[in-house]
């Protein structure tokens, strides 16, 4: 696929608030990106015109019932056929923060056996409790399957901001060790919270902002084309978004968030 053919759909709904930054990040890298209201996609039935789908961050439907669940069910009730085709064709899907919550509630992630009818995991109340808005460090753990991390070497520590109250990933208690083994064996684990030096957070605040199981911040499905993470790469795209830019003598032009957007573009331009 040529770079100018790549068309990104950033699917928004009432309560979405990170669509513009995400759109700008993709456009900066030379691809077409549109912020499209889900009801427009339902009306026009044109989801399959896009090569990449993004669920951006925000508070869709006011986070009512559980974060992401109403958007997820709205989609499965109204756009299931197009979603199924999009997924079956292996097109990439990215979920950021609330987008990750939507994907988990939809059953797209973890996706141990394809899309599940009911959620196989949950992103729930932070521990310690409360909304956390800060920069965190993440270690890249994926060995090559994830389509969104090809530009980030295994073991590299990157820094991205988070802003959420419900980001603690958990699995059914009785299955968590077995599911963790599957995540690792099938190369579905992508980012884990760590310290600046790269030591895993081991659930401890502040390195872990939410007490997530096994310090998990991002995972992909078995095929690697569906990826969700709680931190916001679109808020770490440019040098002027870095928290310490006023103290630096020399800044890189881009922040670590760029690596995620660039990875999927490189993947699409090289493989198809």
């Amino acid at each position, binding site marked *: 696929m040529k770079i100018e053919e790549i068309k990104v759909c950033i699917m928004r709904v009432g309560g979405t608030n990170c669509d513009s930054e995400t759109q700008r990040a993709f456009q900066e890298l030379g691809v077409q990106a549109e912020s499209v209201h889900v009801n427009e996609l339902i009306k026009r039935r044109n989801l399959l015109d896009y090569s990449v789908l993004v669920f951006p961050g925000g508070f869709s439907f006011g986070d009512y019932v559980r974060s992401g669940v*109403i958007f997820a069910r709205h989609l499965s009730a109204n756009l299931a056929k197009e979603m199924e085709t999009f997924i079956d064709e292996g097109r990439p899907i990215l979920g950021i923060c609330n987008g990750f919550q939507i994907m988990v509630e939809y059953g797209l992630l973890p996706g141990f056996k394809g899309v599940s009818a*009911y*959620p196989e995991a949950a992103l729930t*109340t932070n*521990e*310690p409790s409360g909304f956390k808005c800060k920069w965190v460090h993440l270690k890249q753990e994926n060995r090559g399957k994830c389509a969104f991390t090809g530009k980030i070497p295994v073991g590299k520590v990157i820094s991205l901001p988070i802003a959420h109250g419900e980001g603690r990933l958990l699995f*059914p*208690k009785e299955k968590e060790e077995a599911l963790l083994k599957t995540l690792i064996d099938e190369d579905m684990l992508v980012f884990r919270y760590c310290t600046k030096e790269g030591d895993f957070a081991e659930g401890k605040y502040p390195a872990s902002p939410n*007490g997530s199981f096994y310090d998990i911040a991002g995972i992909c499905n078995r095929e690697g084309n569906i990826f969700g993470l709680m931190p916001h790469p679109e808020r770490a795209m440019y040098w002027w978004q870095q928290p310490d830019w006023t103290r630096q003598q020399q800044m890189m032009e881009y922040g670590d968030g760029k690596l995620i957007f660039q990875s999927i573009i490189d993947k699409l331009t090289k493989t198809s």
Partner: protein
Amino acid sequence: MKYAAKIEVSLKPGHSNPEGETTSRLLVELGYKVQAVDVSKLYTVHLDATSLAEAEAKAEEMSKRLLANPTKDNYTISVAEVK
């Protein structure tokens, strides 16, 4: 016929409960001898059904499809006819 289904969604045992722990700590600070706080959410769904059994079945389906996440939630349902 009209029914009211009360669906209470609560946390499964074994999962940590930061909301309850924070609430409990504050109640202790306010001077109450509190051991723990469990948090649940109560939905009262007003619906039409042809029988009590059908209303219960619908409430069960709603819980599974929307109101509870089986990873972490338990739910109980109690349905009554509304006259």
